[in-house]
């Protein structure tokens, strides 16, 4: 086979095209479960930085103000148990690594009073912004195809999305990603 391919370039080219198509099809097939389910990696987070949402005190906060930090944007809600379960880890890491440039920002698909109450209960040490359905749409543009929660986006200092996660982001995994970016 290799001898034939090397002596007939057109055959080699078409074999290459077939292989490429097969790889593409395989990628589409096996990647089907992931398509949209959080695959915004490598994408520029510009859309995210252009967003401004009110915090629990009603002050408008632009996500752009955290550009240059290692940013972890977490979409959550008080009615979402898996979201609440992972947030104490975020609080801990914000306290430990905030000084090295790690910044968590929560975007709650929720009402301000409920967010405020939970933030107080948890001792939330990073901003909690209030997003409505528009925030769900924002998460969809970042790869959260179904708009489900929790959904987390990790952005590096250069403003590139390096990881998106639907469902809980285990601390070890979060640390292995963030550790390389700090």
């Amino acid at each position: 086979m290799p001898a034939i391919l090397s002596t007939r370039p057109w055959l080699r080219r078409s074999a290459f095209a077939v292989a490429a198509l097969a790889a593409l099809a395989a990628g589409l097939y096996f990647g089907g479960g992931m398509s949209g389910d959080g695959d915004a990696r490598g994408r520029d987070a510009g859309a995210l930085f252009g967003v401004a949402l009110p915090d629990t005190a009603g002050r408008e906060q632009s996500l752009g103000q955290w550009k240059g930090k290692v940013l972890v944007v977490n979409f959550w809600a008080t009615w979402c148990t898996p979201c609440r379960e992972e947030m104490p880890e975020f609080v801990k890491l914000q306290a430990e690594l905030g000084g090295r440039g790690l910044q968590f920002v929560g975007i709650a698909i929720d009402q301000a009073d409920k967010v405020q109450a939970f933030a107080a209960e948890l001792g939330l040490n990073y901003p909690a912004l209030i997003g409505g359905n528009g925030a769900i749409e924002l998460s969809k543009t970042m790869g959260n195809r179904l708009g489900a929660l929790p959904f987390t986006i990790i952005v590096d200092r250069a403003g590139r999305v390096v990881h998106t996660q639907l469902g809980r982001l285990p601390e070890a995994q979060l640390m292995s990603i963030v550790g390389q970016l700090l």
Partner: protein
Amino acid sequence: MDSLPISAGSPAKPRRPEPARRVRVLWLAALASSFAASGPAVAQGQPKLLEPERAFAFSVQALDDRTVEARFAIADGYYLYREKLKLSILPPALAGPPALPPGKLKDDEFFGRVETYRDRLAVRIALDKADPGRKVTVRAESQGCADVGVCYPPQVQTITLALPAPGAPPGAPVEAAPARKSWFN
């Protein structure tokens, strides 16, 4: 095939795989490893999930000229919160608040004991008066989660259907969202 006894004519010569077979074996190994590689990539925090309208398939059937039955077919591995389920009729025409059946008790770390629905749920809704032929809209507000650890935002689904004539057989069930046909879902 490989385990067949070696023919008596060549007792000292161990049988070796022919090149063609070796290539085939390599192919299979490569294929298997690509499958293995694709597995964890999909499982890694990106669970394969259903769209909410498919995880919680809503339908309504008109039973008679003053009763409709709202149903949820809940996919395996998904659940709805009883407390978050709100059924209503538009324009308002409820005889009384719909009686939601008891759910399955779930101990939630934050919300305490909550009731959840799994598998199937059917709720009869009585209208304030018989109104054959009239079109009514059944509105369902629901919120649910998947066992893999994600929750869907509250969703509102509506179904409009006509009430049957008195004594007529129940109407056909009306689905909120037709199942999407796709290779990937």
